[in-house]
Protein backbone atom coordinates (compact mmCIF):
# COMPACT_ATOMS: atom_id res chain seq x y z
CA UNK A 1 0.00 0.00 0.00
CA UNK A 2 1.24 3.46 -0.83
CA UNK A 3 1.39 5.63 2.27
CA UNK A 4 1.36 9.42 2.03
CA UNK A 5 1.25 12.07 4.72
CA UNK A 6 -1.13 14.97 4.08
CA UNK A 7 -2.28 17.94 6.14
CA UNK A 8 -5.72 19.49 6.24
CA UNK A 9 -6.30 21.33 2.99
CA UNK A 10 -3.91 19.11 1.02
CA UNK A 11 -4.98 16.59 -1.59
CA UNK A 12 -3.94 13.49 -3.41
CA UNK A 13 -4.81 12.69 -7.01
CA UNK A 14 -5.73 9.24 -8.27
CA UNK A 15 -5.35 9.01 -12.00
CA UNK A 16 -6.16 12.17 -13.92
CA UNK A 17 -9.50 13.05 -12.48
CA UNK A 18 -10.02 11.83 -8.94
CA UNK A 19 -9.00 14.29 -6.22
CA UNK A 20 -9.20 13.47 -2.53
CA UNK A 21 -8.76 16.37 -0.16
CA UNK A 22 -8.25 16.16 3.59
CA UNK A 23 -10.71 18.71 4.93
CA UNK A 24 -10.25 18.24 8.61
CA UNK A 25 -8.47 15.92 11.01
CA UNK A 26 -9.71 15.73 14.54
CA UNK A 27 -8.38 12.90 16.65
CA UNK A 28 -9.08 9.67 14.79
CA UNK A 29 -11.79 11.21 12.63
CA UNK A 30 -10.69 12.49 9.24
CA UNK A 31 -13.07 14.31 6.92
CA UNK A 32 -12.36 13.84 3.24
CA UNK A 33 -13.67 15.67 0.22
CA UNK A 34 -13.76 13.64 -2.98
CA UNK A 35 -14.02 14.94 -6.52
CA UNK A 36 -14.56 12.26 -9.13
CA UNK A 37 -16.15 11.93 -12.56
CA UNK A 38 -19.81 11.04 -12.40
CA UNK A 39 -19.32 7.46 -13.58
CA UNK A 40 -16.97 6.82 -10.66
CA UNK A 41 -19.06 5.87 -7.67
CA UNK A 42 -17.70 6.78 -4.28
CA UNK A 43 -18.89 4.70 -1.33
CA UNK A 44 -17.85 4.09 2.20
CA UNK A 45 -16.11 0.73 1.89
CA UNK A 46 -18.34 -1.09 4.37
CA UNK A 47 -21.46 0.15 2.56
CA UNK A 48 -20.12 -1.00 -0.80
CA UNK A 49 -19.22 -4.43 0.60
CA UNK A 50 -22.65 -4.84 2.17
CA UNK A 51 -24.33 -3.85 -1.08
CA UNK A 52 -22.13 -6.22 -3.06
CA UNK A 53 -23.05 -9.07 -0.70
CA UNK A 54 -26.76 -8.17 -0.82
CA UNK A 55 -26.71 -8.05 -4.63
CA UNK A 56 -24.95 -11.40 -4.87
CA UNK A 57 -27.49 -12.90 -2.54
CA UNK A 58 -30.36 -11.42 -4.53
CA UNK A 59 -28.97 -12.49 -7.92
CA UNK A 60 -30.57 -15.34 -9.82
CA UNK A 61 -33.09 -16.65 -7.28
CA UNK A 62 -34.21 -20.26 -7.53
CA UNK A 63 -37.52 -21.06 -9.18
CA UNK A 64 -38.90 -22.05 -5.77
CA UNK A 65 -38.03 -18.67 -4.33
CA UNK A 66 -39.57 -16.86 -7.31
CA UNK A 67 -42.72 -18.93 -6.88
CA UNK A 68 -42.85 -18.03 -3.19
CA UNK A 69 -42.67 -14.32 -4.01
CA UNK A 70 -45.27 -14.61 -6.76
CA UNK A 71 -47.60 -16.39 -4.37
CA UNK A 72 -47.10 -13.73 -1.78
CA UNK A 73 -48.15 -11.14 -4.35
CA UNK A 74 -51.18 -13.10 -5.44
CA UNK A 75 -52.49 -13.66 -1.92
CA UNK A 76 -52.54 -9.90 -1.57
CA UNK A 77 -55.31 -9.64 -4.15
CA UNK A 78 -57.77 -11.59 -2.10
Amino acid at each position, binding site marked *: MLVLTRRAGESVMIGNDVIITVLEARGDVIRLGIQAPRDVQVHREEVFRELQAANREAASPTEDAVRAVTEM*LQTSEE
Partner: protein
Amino acid sequence: MIDPSLGLPTISMAVPMPGFPAHREFVLVRLNEDGLLYAFTSIQDPELRFLVAPPEPFFPDYAPEIENEVFSALNTRDTDRLLLLTVITAGVEETTANLLAPIVVDRDSMRAMQVVLSGSGYPVRAIMHRAY
Protein backbone atom coordinates in the same frame (compact mmCIF):
# COMPACT_ATOMS: atom_id res chain seq x y z
CA MET B 1 -33.93 -17.74 -20.56
CA ILE B 2 -34.62 -14.51 -22.34
CA ASP B 3 -34.89 -14.40 -26.06
CA PRO B 4 -33.50 -11.07 -27.25
CA SER B 5 -36.23 -11.05 -29.89
CA LEU B 6 -38.75 -10.29 -27.16
CA GLY B 7 -37.99 -6.76 -28.23
CA LEU B 8 -37.78 -5.35 -24.74
CA PRO B 9 -35.96 -2.06 -24.55
CA THR B 10 -32.37 -2.30 -23.37
CA ILE B 11 -31.50 -0.54 -20.14
CA SER B 12 -27.87 0.54 -19.84
CA MET B 13 -26.26 0.83 -16.44
CA ALA B 14 -24.63 4.24 -16.06
CA VAL B 15 -22.63 2.56 -13.31
CA PRO B 16 -22.51 -1.23 -12.93
CA MET B 17 -24.23 -2.80 -9.96
CA PRO B 18 -21.85 -3.49 -7.05
CA GLY B 19 -20.71 -7.09 -7.38
CA PHE B 20 -21.53 -7.26 -11.11
CA PRO B 21 -19.06 -4.97 -12.87
CA ALA B 22 -19.26 -6.81 -16.20
CA HIS B 23 -23.02 -6.52 -16.64
CA ARG B 24 -23.97 -3.23 -18.21
CA GLU B 25 -27.11 -4.01 -20.18
CA PHE B 26 -30.38 -5.34 -18.86
CA VAL B 27 -33.99 -5.81 -19.84
CA LEU B 28 -36.97 -5.62 -17.55
CA VAL B 29 -39.15 -8.70 -17.89
CA ARG B 30 -42.59 -8.50 -16.32
CA LEU B 31 -43.37 -11.52 -14.13
CA ASN B 32 -46.70 -10.47 -12.69
CA GLU B 33 -49.81 -9.26 -14.48
CA ASP B 34 -50.28 -6.34 -12.13
CA GLY B 35 -46.77 -5.07 -12.75
CA LEU B 36 -45.75 -5.78 -9.18
CA LEU B 37 -42.81 -8.03 -10.00
CA TYR B 38 -40.15 -7.90 -12.69
CA ALA B 39 -36.95 -9.73 -13.51
CA PHE B 40 -34.10 -7.30 -14.21
CA THR B 41 -32.23 -9.58 -16.56
CA SER B 42 -28.70 -9.26 -17.92
CA ILE B 43 -28.46 -9.29 -21.70
CA GLN B 44 -24.89 -10.63 -21.59
CA ASP B 45 -25.93 -13.49 -19.35
CA PRO B 46 -29.68 -14.15 -19.13
CA GLU B 47 -28.95 -16.53 -16.26
CA LEU B 48 -28.24 -13.44 -14.19
CA ARG B 49 -31.43 -11.80 -13.06
CA PHE B 50 -32.63 -9.81 -10.12
CA LEU B 51 -36.19 -9.77 -8.91
CA VAL B 52 -37.27 -6.17 -8.65
CA ALA B 53 -40.50 -4.45 -7.71
CA PRO B 54 -41.85 -0.94 -7.51
CA PRO B 55 -41.62 -0.12 -3.79
CA GLU B 56 -44.86 1.89 -3.43
CA PRO B 57 -47.33 -1.00 -2.97
CA PHE B 58 -45.12 -2.65 -0.37
CA PHE B 59 -43.57 0.30 1.41
CA PRO B 60 -46.06 3.17 1.11
CA ASP B 61 -43.98 5.43 3.36
CA TYR B 62 -40.82 4.97 1.35
CA ALA B 63 -39.81 8.31 -0.10
CA PRO B 64 -36.16 8.31 -1.07
CA GLU B 65 -34.47 11.54 -2.03
CA ILE B 66 -32.50 11.21 -5.23
CA GLU B 67 -29.57 13.57 -5.60
CA ASN B 68 -28.81 15.73 -8.62
CA GLU B 69 -25.68 13.69 -9.41
CA VAL B 70 -27.96 10.77 -10.23
CA PHE B 71 -29.99 12.86 -12.65
CA SER B 72 -26.86 13.87 -14.51
CA ALA B 73 -25.51 10.31 -14.58
CA LEU B 74 -28.79 9.16 -16.09
CA ASN B 75 -29.12 12.16 -18.44
CA THR B 76 -32.46 12.85 -16.81
CA ARG B 77 -34.48 15.71 -18.22
CA ASP B 78 -37.80 14.97 -16.56
CA THR B 79 -37.75 13.46 -13.07
CA ASP B 80 -41.33 12.25 -13.59
CA ARG B 81 -39.88 9.75 -16.04
CA LEU B 82 -37.79 8.05 -13.38
CA LEU B 83 -38.78 4.58 -12.33
CA LEU B 84 -37.81 3.33 -8.92
CA LEU B 85 -37.28 -0.39 -8.40
CA THR B 86 -36.26 -2.16 -5.25
CA VAL B 87 -34.08 -5.28 -5.48
CA ILE B 88 -35.71 -8.27 -3.85
CA THR B 89 -33.92 -11.15 -2.17
CA ALA B 90 -36.36 -13.99 -2.56
CA GLY B 91 -36.42 -16.70 0.02
CA VAL B 92 -38.94 -19.43 0.60
CA GLU B 93 -39.03 -18.46 4.29
CA GLU B 94 -38.61 -14.74 4.04
CA THR B 95 -38.36 -12.17 1.29
CA THR B 96 -36.54 -8.89 1.74
CA ALA B 97 -36.26 -5.70 -0.26
CA ASN B 98 -33.18 -3.50 -0.49
CA LEU B 99 -34.47 -0.06 0.43
CA LEU B 100 -30.99 1.40 0.91
CA ALA B 101 -30.03 0.97 -2.73
CA PRO B 102 -32.90 1.08 -5.22
CA ILE B 103 -32.35 0.85 -8.96
CA VAL B 104 -33.36 4.10 -10.62
CA VAL B 105 -34.27 3.86 -14.31
CA ASP B 106 -34.78 6.86 -16.58
CA ARG B 107 -37.47 5.75 -19.03
CA ASP B 108 -36.42 8.36 -21.62
CA SER B 109 -32.66 7.84 -21.69
CA MET B 110 -33.02 4.16 -20.69
CA ARG B 111 -30.09 4.56 -18.37
CA ALA B 112 -30.10 3.15 -14.88
CA MET B 113 -28.03 2.90 -11.75
CA GLN B 114 -28.29 1.44 -8.30
CA VAL B 115 -28.35 4.46 -6.04
CA VAL B 116 -27.04 4.24 -2.49
CA LEU B 117 -29.15 6.46 -0.27
CA SER B 118 -26.30 7.32 2.11
CA GLY B 119 -27.42 8.62 5.44
CA SER B 120 -31.06 7.77 4.77
CA GLY B 121 -31.17 5.04 7.39
CA TYR B 122 -33.09 2.77 4.99
CA PRO B 123 -32.24 -0.92 5.47
CA VAL B 124 -30.56 -3.22 2.96
CA ARG B 125 -32.94 -5.98 4.00
CA ALA B 126 -36.45 -4.82 4.76
CA ILE B 127 -38.88 -7.68 5.23
CA MET B 128 -41.45 -7.63 2.48
CA HIS B 129 -45.07 -8.18 3.23
CA ARG B 130 -48.03 -8.46 0.96
CA ALA B 131 -48.90 -5.48 -1.14
CA TYR B 132 -51.39 -3.05 0.32
